[in-house]
């Protein structure tokens, strides 16, 4: 597996706004996963998108994948203060899901 690079490093928004964070990677993948980490709930899996998928939704989350550009984006709609966390992407290219996270995107949602 390889490390994804998240962008931006930090994002500060108001409750109700949308938040978009991006992930870029270097080599071809089998799937890409997004995780969230905050002090309250630890590290939690958000969504997995396979290499043959272009878009996936889960509640207020929308993930897109562009394998030609080797990039993915995570959109959180109608953000809440509880969405405050660090978000990590994990591009998976090996035979199993060995996760390697970069520094992540630190999202702060202000009430």
């Amino acid at each position, binding site marked *: *597996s390889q*490390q994804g690079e998240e962008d931006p490093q930090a994002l500060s928004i108001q409750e109700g706004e949308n938040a978009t964070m991006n992930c870029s990677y270097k080599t071809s993948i*089998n*799937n890409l*996963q997004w995780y969230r980490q905050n002090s309250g709930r*630890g*590290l*939690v*899996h958000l969504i*997995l998108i*396979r290499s043959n998928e272009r878009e996936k939704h889960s509640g207020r989350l929308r993930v897109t994948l562009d394998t030609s550009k080797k990039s993915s984006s995570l959109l959180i709609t109608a953000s809440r203060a509880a969405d405050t966390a660090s978000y*990590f992407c994990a591009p*998976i290219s090996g*035979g*199993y*899901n*060995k*996760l*390697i*996270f*970069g*520094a*992540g995107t630190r999202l702060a949602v202000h009430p």
Partner: protein
Amino acid sequence: GAGVSQSPSNKVTEKGKDVELRCDPISGHTALYWYRQRLGQGLEFLIYFQGNSAPDKSGLPSDRFSAERTGESVSTLTIQRTQQEDSAVYLCASSLDSGPYEQYFGPGTRLTVT
């Protein structure tokens, strides 16, 4: 059902001592991973167990680190002769299998080497 549990939650040890960290995966999960996360940084892969197959130890940083898992149950990560640079949160995760499945993480063990 019960999630992944880890113990202890915090461990403070003196440089040079050995420590043992424990992980109880979700019942029925055949894949188990150990990771390390230094303060403010991402996740470093340490070791992976899948059923009774030979583990992937490619992420272990030195021979002071070792891990065991009996079958599909508990795993222990042992760090011998701890150094200050070993200070980090050690996270364990399990997943249903080795395929494209989500990983469920434990709360971690925060290790501080003084």
